[in-house]
């Protein structure tokens, strides 16, 4: 194709997006669009999979049968989200194997929030309430993103995420209505998860790359700082409802702007965790890579069996 032809295709492509048409796997797309989507979608899928670990840590110790069932179901949903997102990603011509390789080799990123440890049961509440809450704010706009398979996956994901968020809030509510020990547990979890949750919404706009292009492709519709403000504005009243104190002495409603002002985020910590030095980065990767390596013989067996079965079927046909 000549440069001119490509340019032409690109124009048609951008116009389709501008008209809110969905791009489908078989449609022509610029290489950069494909790559950016693979990066973002796989990062999202990896986050779901790695995100199973901190919550999985409490399945064996959930305090009641009802909570155990709910937690299992939630972690299973996350695996399901991973599955949709990997499948959506595969429509862009990359295999699951390659995507895993990128994760396991450290080439691909996943959400840094999962590099914090889950220390008490209340963390199951805080993760649902805050982490899923921040995730939803990030994700709702993606339900109308330009790439069809991603948009459709996100519609399913968001529906389940908001269920998880309510479930997390309900865990916190129960704790905050409980004994002093339970209240302390809830407050402690909020103290530990608050700042990392704010960081989840990404670096400040000044530090953020890719934003303009992503806006055009509807991979992003609001800036990180806008999303963060939205999250804070939405969450503070919920904390009040729980009778919990957000660990930010500078947090204050600003009558003029109609938003909450808040304190300085420790970006040094943010970058430290992103760069692989958070409390659990090593553990998460060891767990993932370990599971994958220990499972190699199982995957090989499944492949060998499928091959044998196919060969037998062929033989029967030709016989």
């Amino acid at each position, binding site marked *: 194709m000549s440069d001119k032809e490509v340019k032409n295709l690109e124009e048609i492509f951008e116009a389709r997006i501008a008209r809110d048409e969905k791009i489908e796997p078989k449609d022509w797309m610029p290489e950069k669009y494909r790559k950016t989507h693979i990066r973002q979608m796989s990062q999202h899928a990896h986050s779901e999979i790695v995100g199973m670990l901190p919550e999985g840590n409490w399945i064996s110790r959930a305090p009641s049968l009802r909570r155990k069932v709910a937690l299992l179901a939630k*972690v299973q949903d996350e695996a399901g989200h991973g*599955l949709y997102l990997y499948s959506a990603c595969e429509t862009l011509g990359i295999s699951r194997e390659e995507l895993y390789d990128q994760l396991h080799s450290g080439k691909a990123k996943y959400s840094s929030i999962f590099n914090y440890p889950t220390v008490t049961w209340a963390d199951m509440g805080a993760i649902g309430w805050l982490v899923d809450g921040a995730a939803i704010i990030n994700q709702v706009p993606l339900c109308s993103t330009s790439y069809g398979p991603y948009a459709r996956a996100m519609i399913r994901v968001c529906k389940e995420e908001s269920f998880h968020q309510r479930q997390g809030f309900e865990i916190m509510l129960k704790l905050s209505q409980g004994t002093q020990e339970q209240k302390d547990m809830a407050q402690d979890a909020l103290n530990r998860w608050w700042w990392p949750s704010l960081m989840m919404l990404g670096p400040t706009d000044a530090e953020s790359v890719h934003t303009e292009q992503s806006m055009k492709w509807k991979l992003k519709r609001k800036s990180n700082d806008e999303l963060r403000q939205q999250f804070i504005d939405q969450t503070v009243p919920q904390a009040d409802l729980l009778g919990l104190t957000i660990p930010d002495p500078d947090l204050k409603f600003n009558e003029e702007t109609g938003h909450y002002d808040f304190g300085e985020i420790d970006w040094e910590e943010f970058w430290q965790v992103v760069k692989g030095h958070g409390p659990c980065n090593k553990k998460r990767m060891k767990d993932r890579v370990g*599971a994958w390596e220990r499972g190699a013989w*199982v995957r090989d067996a499944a492949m*060998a*069996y499928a091959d044998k079965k196919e060969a037998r079927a062929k033989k029967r046909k030709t016989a």
Partner: protein
Amino acid sequence: MSTGQLEDLHKYLLGIADNSLILGQRLGELCGHGPSLETDIALTNISLDLFGQVRSYFQYAAQIIADDKVTEDSLAFLRIEREYRNVLLVEQPNTDFGYTIARQFFFDAFHFLFLKELENSKDETLAAIAKKSIKEVSYHWRFSSDWIKRLGDGTQESHDRIQEAVNDLWMYTDELFHQTDADKEMIAQGIGVDTLAIKKSYYKMITEVLEEATLAIPESKYWHKGGKQGIHSEHMGYILSDMQYMQRTYPNMEW
């Protein structure tokens, strides 16, 4: 029913439910650590089904005991080890995916045949739980027996590994059919399942799959038992120390 009969029914319910409880717990440990996303989801799903069944049995068991302190959670989390009635099979560790599948396979075949009979229980609640559960369990059985075939008839390595797991766990299968005094009483009343009557079908059912999977049927006739009398393997204490952790550390609280 007389008090004695209610007590036997209560014990009978715990005997059934504890198998699902401990197996569900074992599967829950694996969540996020499976060999693939698909198997991870499937095993979590089985765990979920089992815990769902546990809740039905325990809620019923709590209801028929005249003691406000007995709830589904006190039954699940606040008994001492000697009071759990599960068979030894279900507490065996997740040594690897082969052991996990073999344990599941040996249990699912029993569970399926057992529930098929329990559907005919004179106790309507039990019959209803069985009816609901059997759909789930027939899926579990399909999953585990498919994997027995894949591993047995997959690569040489997978064949050897699943054969080892089958050999090691075989000795726990006989206990599935043991009958405690409460079991016998419930069978006599048409409430419980006569496990001896399904034993032959069981070994036929698993033998067929093992053979199709090109696996050797273990010959050992030495069987292990004890779980149904509350004498568990050394694994059990560690299962319970995690499982009961929250309820023991923070007693009398709502979650």
